[in-house]
């Protein structure tokens, strides 16, 4: 633990020193070549086309999505359409073509656009907020547990708690959440979708919904017509000959058959979410469910389904708040210590942002993850206000429940998420999307151990029996800190 802390402290010092010494050197450099804001973006996003395109760091699954759609549709148009156009109607390839174009358009729009990232606070703002928090909390409350940083707001008669984000140094607006994978706070955060390689938030939720809706239609369309094709062929030449004549059809049917359940289920789920004006995040946490209390209701809902749908899909598209392609003006307040030009959106950035508490928590997390994990899982560290979610296997939820592979042992720990509001991963299968992150990041300094959060929902391995979901979604960093210490003490007592 000490090694971890001192190592990360040393690294932090290193980056601080390099910042100080490089600033006077940077300004002449900047005068010569003004850098664009995306190059100094503090999150973990990747940018392409000079800042026009913005995606998450891990894009492997997105390419898989692209390949699946392109290959299946390509095979359909190449092998099945000629027969269908002549045997039935040329409208079939036409409609298929329109659907395909719409699917690709909405997919790319979802993947490439800014989901509604909230820019981090400038140093002045952060200092001002800290001052206000200190004033509000008064002198130290005694004990080693400072009060949590939350603010309560009354929205349409419902009390909503606003949490302070330690990474972005802001009080998160209602419905915003911090995505650990992208290391950004996102407005109206729905979920992080690896299939589209981006977060789904306020600005791209409608594109995401249109994507899954049109993909459902496309999948059903292809499935139906490939079957029709094979049936028509087998009427003239027999079933096996028909299959031999168009082998591509078999592949298409298989892909479509397995996709249709998850995609259609997902569309249905999101249609429900839209009509009740909830986000996936809220639905998983049961924020507005009547189980929480008789007076609990959704303050954002407009009351009727039609208005909710219109609000979600046809409301004015808000602009991007992060101004990716603007030039960095020298002397303007930058939210993070400036990069030394070496790492653009790199690993070390996240460390330099962290305050001491984060450092301690991260290094503790590092140690705990390396340590015996079963001990942690029985630790009921979950905050009391989180509902115990009874074995959710909700397949239709979040992003495709196609199995992504078995969770690897170290990552099956209920991770200590740094910032509150974990990603709304649902179902066992979705855990896989984080698993290929955490093992990579485990050996690296604690800064990378963001929310590798298999929330263990519906996880059948008997974690935290009484609580259902042994994930940490702390109301404050500080209580997490204390709990981590408790956890360590427990470990040492074994």
């Amino acid at each position: 633990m000490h090694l971890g802390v001192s190592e990360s402290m040393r690294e932090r010092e290193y980056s601080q020193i390099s910042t100080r010494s490089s600033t006077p050197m940077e300004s002449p450099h900047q005068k010569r070549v003004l850098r664009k804001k995306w190059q100094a973006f503090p999150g973990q996003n990747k940018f392409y086309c000079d800042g026009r395109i913005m995606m998450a760091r891990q894009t492997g699954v997105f390419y898989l999505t692209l390949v699946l759609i392109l290959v299946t549709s390509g095979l359909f148009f190449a092998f099945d359409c000629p027969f269908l156009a002549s045997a039935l109607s040329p409208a079939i390839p036409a409609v298929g073509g329109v659907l395909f174009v719409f699917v690709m358009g909405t997919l790319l729009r979802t993947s490439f656009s800014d989901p509604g990232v909230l820019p981090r606070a400038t140093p002045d703002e952060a200092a001002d907020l800290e001052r206000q928090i200190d004033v509000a909390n008064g002198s130290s409350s005694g004990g080693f547990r400072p009060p949590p940083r939350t603010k309560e707001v009354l929205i349409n008669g419902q009390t909503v708690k606003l949490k302070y984000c330690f990474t972005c140094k802001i009080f998160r607006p209602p419905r915003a959440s911090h995505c650990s994978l992208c290391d950004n706070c996102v407005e109206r955060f729905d979920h992080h979708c690896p299939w589209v390689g981006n977060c789904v938030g306020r600005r791209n939720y409608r594109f995401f919904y249109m994507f899954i809706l049109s993909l459902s239609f496309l999948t059903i369309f292809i499935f139906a017509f490939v079957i029709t094709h094979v049936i028509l062929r087998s009427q003239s030449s027999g079933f096996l000959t028909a299959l031999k004549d168009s082998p591509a059809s078999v592949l298409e049917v298989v892909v479509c058959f397995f996709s249709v359940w998850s995609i259609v289920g997902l569309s249905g789920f999101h249609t429900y979410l839209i009509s009740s004006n909830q986000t996936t995040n809220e639905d998983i946490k049961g924020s507005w469910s009547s189980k929480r209390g008789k007076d609990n209701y959704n303050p954002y809902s407009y009351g009727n389904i039609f208005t909710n749908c219109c609000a979600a899909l046809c409301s004015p598209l808000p602009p991007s708040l992060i101004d990716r392609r603007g030039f960095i003006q020298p002397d303007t307040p930058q939210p993070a210590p400036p990069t030394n030009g070496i790492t653009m959106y790199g690993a070390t950035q996240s460390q330099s942002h962290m305050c001491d508490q984060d450092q301690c928590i991260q290094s503790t997390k590092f140690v705990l993850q390396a340590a015996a994990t079963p001990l942690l899982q029985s630790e009921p560290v979950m905050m009391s206000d989180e509902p115990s979610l009874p074995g959710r296997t909700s397949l239709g939820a979040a992003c495709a429940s196609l199995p992504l592979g078995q969770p690897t042992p170290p990552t099956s720990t209920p991770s200590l998420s740094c910032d509150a509001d974990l990603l709304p991963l649902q179902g066992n299968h979705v855990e896989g999307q984080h698993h290929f992150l955490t093992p990579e990041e485990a050996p690296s300094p604690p800064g990378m151990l963001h929310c590798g959060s298999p929330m263990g929902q519906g996880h059948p391995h008997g974690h935290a029996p009484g609580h259902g979901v042994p994930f940490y979604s702390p109301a404050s960093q500080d209580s997490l800190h204390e709990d981590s210490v408790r956890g360590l003490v427990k470990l040492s007592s074994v």
Partner: protein
Amino acid sequence: ALPHLPALWSNTRKTHSLQDLRQQASIAAKVFVQRDYTTGTICQFQTKFPSELETRIDKQQFEETIRTLNNLYAEAEKLGGRSYLEGCLACVTAYTIFLCMETHYEKVLKKIAKYIQEQNDKIYAPRGLLLTDPIERGLRVVEITIFEDQSNGRIEGR
């Protein structure tokens, strides 16, 4: 009261870039007007008058500015026939229409920028204050920079 600043404002009519001002007048303090979430997620700012500005500007004036800003932001996010039409049209054209057309929100943002500039010129600059357009701060805060009162060397607003 502030010899340098009025000349400064007329020169920088086009862009009130902070670095120009900072080079010529020193900043005494910054006040941040936070968001008001009581009506939901819509962009609204608190109309509570910050104590640091008491010596510089009228309470009514300040509240008027913030209220107008709030109305403008409400207009930007308003759900109505126009926004629905725009949304449907965009959907039908696979959202390619935004390549050539500005969204309603962007149009209102331009209006807001103009309003803030106008307020700065007429009301805030003569009092040694500067409003920063909230969009430059990610719509989180309205940042008001209080400049040093250079006439008698005192630092005000602390």
